[in-house]
């Protein structure tokens, strides 16, 4: 299979602004025709750029840049649907609440969530985490005990590490037994930033 001629293509410019506009229109029409299964956008934050993805049911994935946005979307495509388009307007609500959270003006999230990327014990743990209040923390062992499986602190660690909705599902509020932060999907620095924000806001 031959591919397009790069030299000839370079001599025939396509206005990127027009393509951007058309892509936005495409997402709009796809939404009207029930063809937009996953809407995405990125937002800036004190812990770096975040990728947000939502289905019709709600927010399904929040990703840190270090996870690799393309890799994250490939997983969403495989596990949810490959009908994924950038559609910032669909995520205005999530973007606004995150902005308020990072500004210290919001202590809890009021967003519909889609737990399609989690199941079993991990999902159980992730559903428990929002009950750890803003600014407070628990250890992995304490969370294990709270979900009725006191010897499962290692599995709690895995549930936190694989949390598809970090920040909104506050796995950053779960620390090691000795009070040190422990690992975090967004990196230890991001975890410290979030904990400091919640202590001082």
């Amino acid at each position, binding site marked *: *299979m*031959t*591919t*397009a*001629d*790069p*030299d*000839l*293509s*370079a*001599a*025939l*410019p*396509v*206005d990127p*602004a*027009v*393509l951007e*506009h*058309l*892509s936005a*229109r*495409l997402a709009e*029409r*796809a939404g009207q*025709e029930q*063809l937009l299964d*996953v809407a*995405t956008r990125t937002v800036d934050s004190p812990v770096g750029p975040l990728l947000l993805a939502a289905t019709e049911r709600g927010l399904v994935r929040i990703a840190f840049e270090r996870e690799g946005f*393309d890799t994250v*979307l*490939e997983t*969403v*495509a*495989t596990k949810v*649907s*490959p*009908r*994924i*388009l*950038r559609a910032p307007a669909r995520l205005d609500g999530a973007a606004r609440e995150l902005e308020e959270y990072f500004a210290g003006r919001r202590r809890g999230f009021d967003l519909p969530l889609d737990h399609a990327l989690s199941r079993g014990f991990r999902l159980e743990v992730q559903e428990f985490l929002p009950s750890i209040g803003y600014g407070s923390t628990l250890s992995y062992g304490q969370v294990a005990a709270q979900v009725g499986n006191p010897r499962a602190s290692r599995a709690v660690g895995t549930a936190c590490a694989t949390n598809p909705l970090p920040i909104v599902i506050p796995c950053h509020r779960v620390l090691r037994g000795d009070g040190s932060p422990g690992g975090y999907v967004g990196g230890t620095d991001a975890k410290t930033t979030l904990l400091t924000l919640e202590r001082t806001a």
Partner: protein
Amino acid sequence: MREPFEQAVARHGPAVMRVCRAVLLDPADAEDAWSETFLSALRAWPELPASTNVEAWLVRVAQRRAIDVIRRRSRAPLPVESLPEWASTAGGPGADEGLWSEVAALPEKQRLAVAYHYLGGLPHAETAELTGSTPAAVRRAAADGVAALRRGLAGHPAPSRALSPEGADR
């Protein structure tokens, strides 16, 4: 296909737009065909086999959508409600138009052969099928078309890249 569709739009959007514009010439028509192409593609996307050459497949979809646009255009010339609501900079004064006016000046056979083969990356045999021609005639038309464009490029003020002679024979 398990590739996120938005990655396909980002990767192949420019090439599909070049094909649409080279086939239809009018920028607004090209934008319509581009939109219809990606909407059809999105509909078919989950069922598309993973081994598909996505760009070639999109170019074939674009060819059908371009024909739809031509049919619509001949039935209802200048439908006011389908005009884009933003100001297109295409063709405007000062816009870098590259070789687009040279493409528009090509005879239709050469223009379509250049569009599907050089801009869309389809083999001559497939271009022949899409344009109702023969592979040999398409090969000749594409070569003549590219030669004419290269002459145009020589007289063009500030080309971003020169057309290489090898580019014509691939």
